[in-house]
Each structure stands twice: as C-alpha cells, then as structure tokens.
C-alpha cells in the first residue's frame, strides 16, 4: 500500500526543463518580443564591434574633415569615401557616429543601471534583512530620493559634476539606485515570509547562506525586469540631458547628443543628422522595452502556471 510511487506525470516527465529552459520557451512564445530580442542583439553586436565595423572613427577629430560637413546621405567625401547616412556639421560619418553613439549610449545605460542595481540591491537586501534602524535610515533616504523628480536630481548633479561619461553615469546611478533598493526590499520582504525561508532556518543554515543562496536568487526576477526598464530609462534620460546641454562631451557623442546636435538642422531640411540617430535610439529603447515587457510577463508569478 505504501509502495513508493515513482510514476511522474507523463507530461512533466517528457520535458525535463530547468527553470531557465522553461523561461526561454515562455519568452520566445511572443513573436514581437522575439523580434525585439533580435533587434536588440543586432544593436548589441553593432555597439560592441563598432570600432571594427565603422567606416570611420568618429571620435578621432583628426579623422574628420570639416569640409565634409553636412553631406547628404549617399554622397561621397572629398577623397571619395561614401557616406551612407551623410555627415554631421563636423564631417562625421553619421553611420559610424551612430555605431559609436549606440556604443556610448548602451555603455552609459547599462553601466549606470548595473552599478545602480548593485548599489540598490545591496541597500535593499540590507534593509530587508537587518530591519530596525538600518532599514529605517535606508528607506527614508530612498523615500526622499524617490519623492523627487529624477530629471531634476540629474540636472543639478550634472551641473555640479560637469561633463563626462563618468559624470553622467554617476548622475544616473544616483537617480536610479533608489528604485532598485525599493524593489529589492519589497521582494525580499515578500520572499522572506515564504515557507522555504523558514525551512532553511529550521535546517539551521547560516544567515549568510539563507540570504545569498535562498533569498537572493528569488528576488532576482523582479529586479531583472526593473533593470531592463531602467536601462531604457537611463538611455532616454541621458539623451534628454544631452539635449539640455548637460551630459556627455561633444567629441564623443551618444545617440542623444547626436540628436541634439542635429536638432538645430531639422527645420533646415538636413534631417539626417538628427533623424537617423533618432531612429537608432527609438529601436534601441523600443527593443529593450519589448524584451522587458516580455520578461515581466514571463517572470510574473501570477501569470505563471
């Protein structure tokens, strides 16, 4: 009567998936999200290999010739090189500039969000796990920070710090860490009350082990979702700050700065200086958001079955 039942449900037995495989299968279920991921992959490839695939190094001023400035897409330079997407006012090949700009934008967005994630997650986990005064202090700071518009914080911070990739990354981290801290703490508080954590405590596993082996991995999914959204936000915010004249140095333009530079030429019909970077930015943010949306759905425990 008490014979061990070894028969697993056939449906389950047929597909021995790891959570990751299951996650992949769910993810690719949506065509539009898959398309987003493909676009994102192309963008990432371009960004990473920009120095090897760009016709020109747009960041090296000695490679530019101002006499090539503002050429229309498809025209040839003075020494015969074609400019597929035209040039900007400095004679920068727009195609190369977009490749490099993607690189900068993504680097800024990803680095800033990643650093903010590390900082925010540490803070959030610390707050959730220790509780008490530590939690009160951390969460007050988070509250204060979140009760203030991000763009203003970035604006003032950048005014103080000055320009530069490092500066804008610092500003973006300062703006974003609080979101991670809040999300992490919220999730950690929910997960902490779950029975598997109690089980781990009951098994007399050490605090650190409980936090890092049990609590932390289960807090990750919402943070990953927040992360994709915030990377997109960081890229858009950087573009906006560049538009407002703060942010990156002019010689190493990100997509936002390229748009801002071309902005002045829009009404004069030289659309390509602003338009193509705008399209690149659009594709980047949309694809990240598409992927993020799908991640949200796939990782949402309530929609999971």
């Amino acid at each position, binding site marked *: 009567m008490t014979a061990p039942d070894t028969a697993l449900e056939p449906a389950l037995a047929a597909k021995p998936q790891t959570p990751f495989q299951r996650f992949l299968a769910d993810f690719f279920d949506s065509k539009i999200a898959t398309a987003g991921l493909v676009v994102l992959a192309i963008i990432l490839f371009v960004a990473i290999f920009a120095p090897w695939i760009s016709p020109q190094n747009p960041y090296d*001023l*000695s490679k*530019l*010739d*101002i*006499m090539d*400035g*503002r050429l229309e897409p498809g025209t040839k330079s003075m020494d015969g090189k074609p400019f597929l997407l035209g040039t900007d*006012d*400095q*004679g920068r090949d727009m195609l190369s500039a977009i490749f490099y700009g993607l690189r900068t934008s993504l680097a800024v967005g990803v680095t800033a969000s990643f650093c903010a994630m590390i900082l925010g997650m540490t803070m959030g986990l610390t707050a959730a796990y220790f509780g008490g005064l530590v939690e009160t202090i951390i969460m007050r700071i988070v509250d204060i920070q979140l009760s203030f518009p991000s763009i203003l914080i970035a604006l003032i911070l950048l*005014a103080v710090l*000055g*320009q530069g990739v490092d500066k804008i990354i610092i500003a973006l981290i300062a703006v974003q860490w609080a979101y991670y801290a809040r999300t992490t703490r919220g999730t950690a508080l929910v997960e902490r009350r779950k029975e598997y954590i109690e089980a781990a405590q009951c098994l007399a596993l050490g605090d650190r082990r409980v936090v890092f082996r049990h609590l932390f991995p289960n807090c990750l999914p919402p943070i990953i979702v927040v992360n994709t959204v915030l990377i997109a936000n960081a890229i858009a915010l950087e573009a906006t700050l560049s538009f407002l*004249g*703060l942010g990156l*140095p*002019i*010689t190493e333009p990100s997509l936002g700065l390229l748009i801002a530079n071309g*902005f*002045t*030429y*829009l*009404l*004069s*019909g*030289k659309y390509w200086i602003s338009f193509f970077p705008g399209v690149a930015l659009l594709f980047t943010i949309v694809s990240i958001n598409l992927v993020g949306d799908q991640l949200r759905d796939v990782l949402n425990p309530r929609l999971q079955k």
Partner: protein
Amino acid sequence: MKRIFAATGAGLAAAVFLASAVAAAEITIGLGADVTSMDPHYHTLSPNNNIATHVFGTLIDQDEMQKLKPGLAESWRIIDDSTWEFKLRRGVKFHDGSDFTADDVVATLARVPAVPNSPAAFTIYTKSIAGVSVVDPHTMIVKTAGPYPLLPTDLSNIFIISQKQAKAATEDFNAGKAMNGTGPFKFASWARGDRINLVRNDGYWGPKPAWDKVTFKLITNDPSRVAALLAGDLNAIEIVPTADMAKLKTNKDINIFRVVSNRIIFFHLDTDRDVSPFVTDKQGKPLDRNPLKDLRVRKALSKALNRPGIVDRVMEGEAIPAGQLLPDGFYGTSPNLKPEAYDVEGARKLLAEAGYPQGFAITIHGPNNRYVNDEKIVQAAAQMFARIGVDAKVETMPSNVFFTRANKLEFSFMLVGWGSGTGEVSSPLRSLLATFDAARGMGTANRGRYSNKQMDALLDQALATVDDAKREKLLQQASEVAINNLGIIPLHYQVNSWATRKGVMYVPRTDENTLALEFKPRS
C-alpha cells in the same frame, strides 16, 4: 487657412479682430534671450538694454553701425581735457507728459550707482564722471576725473529716466509704474519670460514709429523661434540660427537682414605661465616649457586655422574671418591687419623651428551655450590642429562653469568672444589684452594674462587722448602690436541676422539690438 480655422471657433470676434489688427500696425518680434528686468539701471545685459532703448532715451544714440549720433543731447563739445558741455534737445516730453530737462539727467546719473543688489551695475559707464553741473534746463557741464575721451560712448549706454522716478525701486519698473521714458514706445505690459507689450509714443521727438503696438515674444529655443516665424506667429525674429539660414534664404516668404557684428570670436591662450596646465607632450607628460609663450608656435596655430572653412561649414557663412579685434571700419581698427591665411605647411615649419617638429598635445576649452556654434568651432579647430601635429582635445562646458574656471586661469587655450558695446577698439584692447591690473580695470578679461609693455603704453596714451584722430592712430598701433604678437588668435566676427515675414524690412545693426523702430513695412 489659419484664419478659417479660428473663425469657426468660439473666440470668433476676438480672433478676427486680432488678425486684422496685425495687418494694420502691429508687429510681433521673437527675441532670442530673456529679459531679466525692466529697470534700465539694474543689470547691463543686452536684452534688458534692448527693451530700455525702446522706452527710454539716451543723451547720445548709436546708429546701426554704432556711430554716435545726437539723442536727447543735440550736441556736445569738449571744453578742456576733462570738461564736456552738452546741449539738450528742447521740446522733448516724457510719456507722462512732463518736460525733459537737465535735472532728469542729473537724477539719472544719481540713481545709477544707487540701484541695490545689481549684479552688474551701469556704474562702469559713469565711473569716469567727477561732477555734473546744470547751466540751464537744456545745458549741462560734465567733468571727468582725468582726460576721458570715451565719455560720449559711455553716456550712450545710460538710459535717462524722469526725475520723478529718481527714487523708484526696481520693482516699480518691473511693475510698469516707473516705466516713464522719452523713447519711441510706451511700456504696456510684461509677462515675465513670455512677452513684452509696447505701444507707440505719439509724442516721440524723432521719426514716427511704424507700429501702433509691438509685442516681443521671448523664444530662447532656436528652432522654436524659427518655427514660430515660419508658422506666421511672428513677424520677425532676431538671432537667426545659422543652421536654418540656408533654408530661410530660399523661402520666398522670408526676408533676411544681416550685418557683421561687433562680436569677435577668438582663442585666448596662456602666454604667461612657464608650465601651462593643459599643454603637454603627446604622451600626456608635462612639458618643461610652455610652447604657447613662443610666438612661432602661436603663429603656427593661427596658420593652422582654416578660417574660411569654419565660416563656411560651421557658421554657414554667417561670419567673417577675423584679422583683428573689430571688423574693418570700426573706430580704431587697423587697415594693415588681415586674417591669417590657412597654411598647413607654413604652420608645420614654424612648429619645427620652435622645436616641436612632432607637435604637442593641448586641450581646448570652450563654453557650449554662450556663442553661436561655440562647441562646433572648438571641435573644428581641434581637427585643424591635428593636421599640423598638435593633438587637441576638446572640453566644453556650460558657460556658468566655463567662465568661473576661466577667471581662475584654469585653462591654457580657450575659445571666447567679445562684443564691443562701445563700438570701438579700446574696449577689447583694455579688457582682453592690457596687462592685468584689477584696480585700474585693465585686463579684466585677460584670461591668458597676455602682457606687452609697448601695447600697454600705447593704450594708456590713447585712453588719455581726447583728440579723436590722434587717438584712433594710437589705437591702431596698439592693435597692430597686440595682434601681430598674437596675444589672442582671432577667428571670426559673428554676423548679426534678423529674419522677417515678407513685407517687413529691418535695418540690421552691429550692436545686436532689435529695435522695433527700425522695422518698417515695405512701402
């Protein structure tokens, strides 16, 4: 089409009325910089002065080429080196109907230093005055501390208020209560940051303004301003963005008016210190001596600049290559000074002669929101320096940071500009190139700490010479010394431009002022 759209709406009567009134005698002008105060003596800032020029009069006016011409003073003469007599215009009335007399001038001069909290007072134009005496209501004597030939020029910047407003506070002007001048337009209203409304002063002593009502709209964003003009919301705009110039020129509905300005764009360079912070060898190690102290190096850098290229590509033709401090024809400019020709080979040779055959590395600093295309010019220059082996890095920043750092002498090589409000060459010579002497107000903007005894002597002499012809000679000599020695590297003069809807004409001005009086319907 717009009319039709408006007429279908609820505000039908008002819209039609407004629309027809525009055709009659109204003009709406888009301004590119914000007006901070209505007080004519609070802050010497071009947008403020521009509005004040409409409402208030000055003893001496500047014409469109900044030549002095009689204003509220019909004539003036020198009695001795430090005594001037002014004959005031008769029959001039303030907007409130009271007569203009010498007492108003006295009251004005007394108010100028008494405006509280001014961040940039008009006292820079009155400090030479030692005493004023009224001979009769229309004659007055002004005594200066020493020989001071620039008195008329300075006075052309002082707006005369009525003695009734002698004690008025800045707030009273801002609220419009004290806006009582002798100018061609009366103040009507000011919506801060948005618009200023003026109405015609029918009792104006000079030529009758063409407009019953003038509206200045403040649209600091360049494309927005152009768009507003194209959309027909504005009749005219100032500071036409260079980027849009080409397109606007081909637009049949738009007229463009351009004139060279009194603003020069140039590079200031550290010719003082033996080790300059941003000049290094190509590996980034400090050099044992500062190459910028070597005239040959400066010359090489100047030759490396393709001025016509910058004018054509960066400035879209809206600039003129510069060879000295003010465009030819301005008082004190030298006919002998011409823009340096673009000569890469010559530049390389000079560098080699100076001991830098491989070049060196330098960082060019510049503001990114102060001058037309400032950021782009710096980049273009960096490109050009790269061609003669000088590795130039570019660092631009908002002007608030830039000027604070520049004043602390943190830079080695920087892009700056200078507009001569006085319209003559002593202004840039004194501020940019004279040896720094804070107490005397010499070299106040000499951020390269250029110092040349010969130039200093010539300038001092000129500033004490009241005779115009003699002074001009001295100023020309001083210019030649400073420019040939490359105390600064001139780049170009900006071109001031205005764009109007078809049917409105403007007389472009070198001083950047946008005067409603000078807009005329095409007759």
